[in-house]
């Protein structure tokens, strides 16, 4: 298998090469930061007209994950929509597609800073979700334990033999797991950013997405000033 299995708060979790997380015991798939409708939001605000295919692409990849894992429940870990209006802008085809994926599944939209209110899709809306000893919320808290979060779009960046390698990644220590962003037009924040040093003060491990999941240690955080 190309995925990597890790444990958090005694639970066994599979980190998928796509950047999704699968919890076999619960048959639960978790994806973070889909940012559906991002190109629409940028255009609405008078910005550039980006290729409007990212929602289609993100949904295609999500659908593949559902097929491959056979997940019976789904948690979208916040910022699923680039904003509330973007949620309303999805085409009929895209809306039906989401409904089709939701059919027969327990589906939770966790609220994020981009999509703080309920959106007009099936499934339930929650600010956070607790299952067993794990808690799913969009933004990590400093004292969280067994916490799964997204928001920061972590991305690993380093040089191997003179070649720069940059990949979205999971970050893990003994208390929390942070997911990479799953959306197509999302990019990432470099793992050396201070935001990560505060949440992973003793360092941790990064799991890089790609063809296979690759484990590397997080760079040791530099003392914040």
């Amino acid at each position: 298998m190309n995925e990597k299995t890790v444990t958090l708060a005694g639970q066994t979790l599979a980190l998928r090469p796509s950047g999704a997380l699968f919890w076999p015991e619960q048959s639960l798939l978790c994806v973070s930061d889909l940012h559906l409708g991002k190109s629409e939001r940028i255009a609405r605000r008078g910005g550039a007209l980006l290729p409007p295919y990212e929602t289609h692409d993100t949904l295609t990849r999500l659908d593949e994950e559902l097929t491959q894992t056979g997940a019976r429940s789904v948690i979208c870990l916040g910022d699923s929509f680039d904003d509330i209006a973007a949620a309303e802008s999805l085409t009929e085809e895209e809306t039906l597609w989401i409904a089709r994926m939701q059919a027969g599944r327990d589906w939770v939209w966790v609220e994020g800073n981009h999509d703080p209110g309920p959106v007009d899709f099936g499934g339930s809306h929650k600010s956070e979700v607790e299952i067993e000893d794990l808690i799913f919320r969009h933004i990590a808290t400093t004292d969280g334990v067994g916490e799964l979060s997204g928001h920061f779009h972590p991305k690993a960046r380093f040089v191997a033999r003179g070649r720069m390698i940059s990949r979205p990644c999971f970050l893990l220590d003994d208390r929390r797991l942070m997911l990479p962003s799953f959306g197509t037009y999302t990019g990432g924040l470099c793992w050396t950013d201070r935001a990560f040093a505060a949440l992973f003060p003793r360092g941790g491990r990064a799991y890089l997405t790609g063809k296979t999941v690759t484990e590397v240690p997080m760079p040791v955080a530099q003392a914040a000033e």
Partner: protein
Amino acid sequence: MAELPSTFHDWFFARGWSVHPHQQAMLDRAGDPALLLIAPTGGGKTLAGFLPTLAELASAPRNGLHTLYVSPLKALATDIKRNLRTPVDEMGLDIRIEDRTGDTSATQKKRQRADPPHILLTTPESLALLTSYEDAPRMFAGLERIVIDEVHALAESKRGDQLMLAVSRLQAMCPGLRRVGLSATVEDPSAIATMMARHPDACEILHADPGPLPDIAMLETDERPPWAGGGGAYAIPAVLDAVKAHKTTLIFHNTRAQAEIFFHKLWLANEDDLPIGIHHGSLAREQREKVEAAMVRGDLRAIVCTGSLDLGIDWGDVDLVIQVGAPKNVKRLVQRIGRANHRYNAPSKALLVPANRFEVVECIAALEAVKAHDLDGDPRGPGPRDVLCQHILIRACAGPFDADALFAEVRSVGAYATLPREAFEACLDMVATGGYALRAYDRWQRLKQGADGLWHLRDPRAAQRIRMNIGTIQDTDTLKVRLKNRAGGKPLGEVEEGFAATLSPGDTFLIGGQIVRYEGLREMTVEVTRRADKTPKIATFLGTKFATSTQLSARILEMLKQPNWPELPGHTADWLALQREVSQMPRVDRLLIESFPHDGREQTVVYGFAGRNAMQTLGLLITARMEALGLNPMGFVSTDYAVLIWGLDRIVDPAPLFDADDLRDAFETWLAGNAVMKRTFRASATIAGLLERNTPQARKSGRQATFSSDILYDTLHKYDPDHVMMQITRDEALKGLVDFGRIEEMLARTQGRVDHVILPRVTPLAAPLFLEPGRVPIQGLANERLLAEEAERLLGTAGLAEPPKREWRVPY
């Protein structure tokens, strides 16, 4: 003959000057709609451009903008303001002269729009921005003349296309506008005339006296040039002697990295402590200005520099130009030589320093080309569509427009004179709706057509975002370099982001002639400390290398045909003779391929003479085809004249690898997924307004998660491969770094006539290739393997796993 007002004659007389014939000719033809003056540096070119303006304003004083002066360099605008002030003040003329660049204060800019000066000095980007304001017609009302300085430099880039589109706007506002271009010596003046005149207006070309022939020679050195490399370090003692024998010397290099390394070594050898400075584009502005000021004061004996000193500004008494490394391009060489002796009618003195043995041949060929006035240059082709897209956006910022009228204006620009209406519509559509196969932005179009048929911005707030992104200069992403613990201190300069990414703490490198130690990256600034080391661990890696021009390559091939080479130094002539003895000489009309074993590998050398970029592309294509044929290529390295490929198996029959049609097919497939395409896409998409470099939010926060333009390229490639942006990217990539055009040129002249020579050992011409840097390993899954290897190493150092038993190496 047009008479100058008497005050002018008095002024000229008082200085012991007389009006040059070309200055008089410019006055005589002052009424022409378009004029191009070709003059060598120091020929009173700028004054020739301005004399008609001064004369008109002196004899008929008036208010408002009379003449716009555009130059490619901000510094040049400032410099001209100073130089023009002198005659204006001394003649007591009531003429306001101001400059307007990115450095001008906001208050000053605002005032200039409300109350423009008589003469405004600016850059193409600032002019484009000016035309984007709704009040542009008021500001430019009464504009009589536009003077475009160093038009030859602008003609080579998209900045020139943008400028001429902006001028077409000005012409629409001021139908009587007269255009004047000032150019250095170029190979094809009529191409520049066509570019700058309103199509199809005629444009008279005036030639100033080119002055005496330059005094140009090879630098005599005791030591022989090395077999390979580009530094020219062997020549340092001879260069120092030449510097001592002259007042002020400019030492030109082809890349910034070479300039840095040379400067460093020169300084170590500089026992007499001659004052020598360094000047190149990635030094901080403060650093450059310091050097410039010292130069003007005459405090420096020499400046090690790059193309940043190619243009215009008068640096005082330069009496020698030294070109280190083959000039690659005859035209650039001539312009650089012109920097020596800025006085009219004195010959410029220049010395060439070949950096390696092959460059000796190249330098001699270039020298002969200069003597024969045989300049080179490639025709530019039709105006680029990404620049047109930006122009449409700029036009929309200025107010509602009629598509027919805009199309007519665009077609009046030489480079766009043959633009088909469909191509224009495709650009307009892309700018307005995105132009995607999926019509997604009906509600949020950027431009909308009103009931009156005019196009306008849907959201007026978009104007601010568009204005923030005006321009066609692609600053490669660079990071500032600062000394650590000197927050707010002056930056030392800039390095490319890619170079910064390869640095690890402890690495030392050169910047501005100093050795610094990399400490870390903070908030997008490279932090360094000073080091007293003798040699840097890593040189800087900056700047693209120029490819040897088609014409110069042809001259070299001609030279190789000679039975012997009396004009070459003995060591080089012997080397060529030995090549002829053991193998063959490359020929214009045939493709020479040598195969021999070396280093336990099978080596193949292809002498394509198509220039560095095309040879690189050829290397990629041929190795990809070899891989497909199971020939196990392992890597290649390319130079301006050859590509060396090594692998496990000998190539027995190379001719089929060079089949033109197969090569073209392979090229198409290869191109789609190529990193050059992605880089080109980013540049063109930014110009066309699909990507925004600057957004109001980004400016506020400074830090934010960035997502790479590669994702946009991949998305378009997957879902909308025929999108106009993809077509533009392809066109641009073919011209630029990929340079497939020159592979086509090579295929056309060799017509499948392949000479395959199989030898037992390395040949003389091939030998230097083994010392050439920039070897490219063939990557299959190399990235994944590198990643796995690095992960193991990192886990090892963190004590989480066993250290890897054996180090894996890139298989050269």
